[in-house]
Every structure is written in C-alpha cells, then in structure tokens.
C-alpha cells in the first residue's frame, strides 16, 4: 500500500468530493464543471475547487474542450474532467493478488488451457450467483464494480474489474470474464446467452442483452 494511494482515497471521505468523483465516473468520458456541479448539487465554483483537488491527487484528469462557437467572443475552452486511468488500492494488511494472477494467466496461456480456464470461470460465476438469489443481474454486476449502463437496448459495462490482466492477456481474460458473466446469469436462473462479447476501447468487453432475442 502506498501513502499516495491512501492519501488520494482519503480525499473521497468528503461527501461533496465523493459525489463529484461519482458524477465524473458515471459520465464515462469528459464531464464539464457545470455538469458535475449540477449532479453533485453544489455551486460551479465549489465544484471547480474540489474537482481540481481530485486532479491534484491523481484521481481525475483534466483537459480543455474547445468551444463549439469559433472566433472572437466565443470564450475560453471549457475545462473538462475524466476519471484517471490508473488503479488505486488500499489493503490492510498489504495484499497483492494481481501479481500472482498475472503469473497464473501466463501459465494458462503457455499451456493453451483457455477452455479449462473458461469452464472454471463459468463455475465461479455460478457460485457467485448463489449469494445473490433473486437479484437482477444488473445489480449483481453493479455490486461487483462493472458499472453497467443501458445503451441501445443492451447493458454495457463502463468498468473492467480485471483491467490490468485484461491488458496483459486480453484473449484469455476477456474470455474468462465472459464465461464468468454467463455463469452468473445461469446461477441467477437467467439465460446465459444474454452475455456476449462486444468489445470497445476503454470499457468492459461483455454486454448483456435485455432478452436473448435482441
């Protein structure tokens, strides 16, 4: 655990900063000051102050969006914020599961044992579902950090909970993630075919259709 991580996460104890962070994260891309202020129910000035604090701590990144109207009198470019790409984690006592998972993923890849890994992931998904009987899949996924949102008739996921590994071993990890989501649906008594791969840059690769027909 690094002191930086602890300090950065400590900033989110403030409820205003927390809701501003949530508003930017939920925006999925660049969010303006005014938009974030409205979502958090605070003034634009106060929002700007706290947003910049979050940028300083490395939880958000900022940039400028050019005004739509060009030429004199169109004003300065608007400051926008997005969630920072890096992970922050605090664990007491210190734990490091990612390094071990990374080694194991490499071994699976070397052995060509993807299918076994997918079967195991599907089983893990089914077991996870056991603790969430009767809950809709969307809320289980939200609880597991996927950040689902509706998009064009499907549920897309803004966040990949396995981000670091999915960049090291995309084929293996994204296939396992799909199998996990399918197992989860199955365990919830739902149709596993609702979960599919439809990758886009910067998001989780899995989508869940409303019903299996669409």
């Amino acid at each position, binding site marked *: 655990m690094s002191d930086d991580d602890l300090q950065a996460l400590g900033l989110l104890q403030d409820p205003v900063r927390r809701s501003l962070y949530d508003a930017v994260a939920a925006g999925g891309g660049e969010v303006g000051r005014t938009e974030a202020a409205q979502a958090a129910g605070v003034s634009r000035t106060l929002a700007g102050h706290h947003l910049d604090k979050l940028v300083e701590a490395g939880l958000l990144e900022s940039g400028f969006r050019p005004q739509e109207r060009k030429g004199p009198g169109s004003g300065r470019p608007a400051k926008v914020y997005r969630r920072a790409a890096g992970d922050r984690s605090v664990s007491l006592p210190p734990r490091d599961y990612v390094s071990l998972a990374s080694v194991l993923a490499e071994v699976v890849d070397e052995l*060509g044992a993807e299918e076994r890994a997918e079967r195991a992931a599907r089983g893990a998904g089914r077991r996870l579902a056991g603790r969430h009987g009767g809950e809709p899949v969307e809320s289980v996924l939200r609880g597991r950090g996927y950040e689902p949102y509706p998009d064009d008739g499907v549920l897309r996921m803004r966040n990949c909970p396995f981000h670091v590994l999915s960049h090291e071993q*995309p084929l293996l990890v*994204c296939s396992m993630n799909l199998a996990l989501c399918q197992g989860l649906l199955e365990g919830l008594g739902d149709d596993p075919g609702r979960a599919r791969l439809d990758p886009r*840059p910067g998001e989780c690769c899995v989508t869940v259709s409303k019903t299996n027909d669409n």
Partner: protein
Amino acid sequence: MHLAQLNIAHLRAPVDSAELAEFVALLEPMNDLADRSPGFVWRLKESDVDPTATVVHDYGDHLLVNFSVWESRDALWDYVYRSGHLDVLRRRKEWFHRVAEPYTVMWWIPEGDLPSLDEAMRRLERLRTEGPGPEAFTFKDSYASSEAANLPAAAEARK
C-alpha cells in the same frame, strides 16, 4: 513513426477446404473492420477486387500471412482486442495450429515507408532467435518508437 506488424498462422487445412470456409467468410468483414479502424494505415493485399484472396508468398503452404501498418501500438491493440475481431480471434483453434514459437512481430517504421514481406519475415526470425528488442517485439514486450529510432540494427534488418 508508424508501427508495422506481421502475424502468421499455420492453417489446419487448405484455405479452399470446407474446414476453413467459415474463416474465409470472415476475411472480408474483418479486413473491412481493420480498414475502418482509427489509426489504420495500410495492409498487404493479394487482390483489390477479391476480398477473400489471401496473400500468396514463398514461405510454405498453409501459412497465412497478415501484414499491416498502424499509427500506434494502441491503435493496433484496440483493433485486435477491443473490436469485433476479438470474438474471431477466440475461435483461432478451429482454423490454426497452435505454435510454441512467436507468430507475430512488430517494429517501428518511418511514416510513409512500406516494408516488404521479406523484411517482415526476417524480423520474425530475429524475434524467434534473439528474443524481443526495439527492432522486433510483441505486444507483451513492446518498445516505444523513440527507442527504435536510428538503431543500427534496424538498418541491418532491412538489408
């Protein structure tokens, strides 16, 4: 600098066989997807009129060759792993033999240059014999374009 990438695959059956029919049917949509992807620059084509024609070469039967140039590593990565291409890649075992040695290589080239397939095959050989370096690397062990610029080894590999 632009990024050149070669990847080769050992087909389980002749390209015109029934076993490969589904793969061949996916060539056109996958190539279209690549051509439309952000950061795509160029790819080696056998034919401008037949989208299912695979590159003809002298490196052995049943060897499928994909050779393309991209604006950046991330642009290529997003096409390979963050597009409809991922689902096709997942099915690779249906059509290709699994190989233990590296089957893909990338390296930086000056913008506007179009490397030859001969050079690409030499780079792959270099990766296989000497391991990754700025002049022949993979996604897992990639090098920034600044590390590859003006390397004597890069000129050497081009000969």
